[in-house]
């Protein structure tokens, strides 16, 4: 796994892209241009980008209701993503899925999921498929601290463990499941220890340190590709925005949010890059501008795209009827 300047700058740029994308999504949601509801991952870019920076295009990922970051980090097209959020025909899912169901099978994204933990049995199936097809792909599931309390997570982990499947279980512990503090719903205080039950390596990582995430992921990926089985990573992080856009957030204090704002993964990484002299203020500004330009293009694409015809709803259900 290389960590040369260019790679690191690439990672930084991706993190900025996620942040800016989410910010834009929040704005256009507030403006009523994005229907339904959306869940933003602002503050969690260290995890999404750190993990995906270790993956190949043909590796699989299942993501969650809070999945924009995973999509972008895995290489999704911003135009088609934005268009999907806007419910447009040019979106990834032709407007059928929306934020909670974006998928891009061409880059291995098997889908976001509106069912919490819904992706986990699926990723084990993808891992089994890899093993049966004898490729060296890996399959990665992102899920939350809340999701970790659902039974399917355990069935999926146990099956991946006994069959030594090339799977990464990446738990993004952002401290809350909707209104519920992680410490309320998990008496052990840690989630990574749940892996031990299946004799699976589990590790707790500072999810706001993109390089720590990258390092842990890289060894898990290496183990997986070597046929040594699954790994559990608990990326400890924080969502800086509400659970969904519009969340009254009575369950936490602004002080708490402020503490975590100080640990912003992008600023943290930016400072590190600056210390290494990889990133100047000017360069950082250039990156932001370039990202912004890309996003403006995506936004224009989405806004200028047509809505689906009503009758399009009848297509795409069965492959063959």
């Amino acid at each position, binding site marked *: 796994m290389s960590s040369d300047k260019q790679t690191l700058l690439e990672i930084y740029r991706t993190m900025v892209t996620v942040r800016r994308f989410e910010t834009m999504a929040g704005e256009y949601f507030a403006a009523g241009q994005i229907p339904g509801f959306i869940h933003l991952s602002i503050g969690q870019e260290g995890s999404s980008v750190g993990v995906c920076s270790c993956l190949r295009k043909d590796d699989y990922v299942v993501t969650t209701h809070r999945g924009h970051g995973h999509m972008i980090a895995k290489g999704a097209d911003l135009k088609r993503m934005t268009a999907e959020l806007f419910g447009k025909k040019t979106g990834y899912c032709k407007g059928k899925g929306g934020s909670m169901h974006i998928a891009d099978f061409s880059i291995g994204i098997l889908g976001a999921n509106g069912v919490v933990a819904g992706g986990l049995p699926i990723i084990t199936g993808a891992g089994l498929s890899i093993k049966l097809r004898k490729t060296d792909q890996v399959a990665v599931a992102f899920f939350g601290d809340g999701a970790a309390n659902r039974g399917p997570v355990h069935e999926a982990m146990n099956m991946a463990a006994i069959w030594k499947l090339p799977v990464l279980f990446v738990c993004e512990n952002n401290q809350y*499941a909707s209104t519920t503090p992680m410490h309320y719903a998990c008496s052990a205080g840690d989630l990574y220890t749940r892996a031990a039950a299946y004799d699976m390596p589990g590790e707790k990582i500072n999810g706001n340190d993109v390089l720590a995430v990258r390092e842990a992921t890289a060894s898990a990926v290496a183990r997986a590709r070597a046929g040594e089985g699954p790994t559990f990573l608990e990326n400890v992080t924080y969502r800086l925005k509400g659970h969904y856009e519009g969340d009254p957030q009575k369950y936490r204090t602004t002080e708490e949010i402020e503490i975590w704002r100080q640990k912003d993964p992008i600023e943290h990484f930016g400072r590190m890059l600056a210390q290494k002299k990889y990133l100047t203020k000017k360069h950082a500004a250039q990156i932001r501008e370039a990202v912004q330009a890309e996003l403006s293009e995506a936004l224009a694409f989405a806004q200028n795209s047509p*809505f*689906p015809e009503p*009758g399009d709803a009848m297509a795409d259900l069965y492959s063959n009827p």
Partner: protein
Amino acid sequence: MSERILTCSAALAEALHEEMRRDESIFILGEDLVAHGGVFGQFKGIPEAFPGRIIDSPISETGIAGCGVGAAMTGMRPFIDFHFSDFLTCGMDELCNQAAKIRYMSGGQVKLPMVVWCPDGAGLRAAAQHSQSLEAWFVHTPGLKVVVPSEPADVKGLIKAAIWDDNPVMFFQHKKLFAKEGPVPEEEYVIELGRAAVKKEGRDVSLLCYGAAYYLCLEAASTLREDAIDAEIVDLRTLKPLDMDTVARSIRKTHRAVIVHEACLTGGFGAELAARIQDELFDELDAPVKRVGAKDVPIPFSPSMEDFVLPSVADVLEAARAVTYR
């Protein structure tokens, strides 16, 4: 009876306040209830009024449903909040293999007073996994009762009956109706399960409906009046037990029936009702029983497609005209 205007949410909350005050064995279990009084504000004031009796659960629908069963069998009256009815898929075993069957399998040894409360329905641009109407699955499961109210007064009266029923009751409230307002009596009342309500009398066609579809029928009925078609609206309110008497009385008068629900058409509750009507009232029918429901696809995200998939007033009109012009 004196009345005031309440929303469906407020009607539910009021009923819960009244009954929880009355009986200590009622408690509420579900996800994310305490901090915000429920995702739809449906439990407003309950956390403050009844601390410890409204309990936040981890994200564990299977466990939640099973807890309801265990608590119901041991002296409590659990009120299980299922968050979104779509996640009933995660509790199907506990609901259909356990709750529905345990009393029967034990030879009637035990009661299971348990309400499974589920926000359902589409129209919020929430896409395929947050928009379903799944009541037909439970109608096909002996041992459960199924209630789907439309108006605030029904919500209040029926939830009380559900709470006091000694059997597991699936109680579906449409998400788009939480803010719907309507008159609710001041006085104490309970609406017995298994009683449909003729909400508008008419002579030409019976519009048989429940839940959100009631409002489609209401709108359709006023348009039909312009065509000189006098529609009767029967709000079924409970699907199991089913008030076939009221349905039959209406059809004996109108000789024509249109069933309207939001669930997708194929295999929906309308199928059962149409099958019964044509069997039991064959000679009364001047036209086939028509069904109106969502198209047979998952609910799509984008507004124009979602609206297209859902049953509309136009669909009701078309069906009503088809049977009356016949």
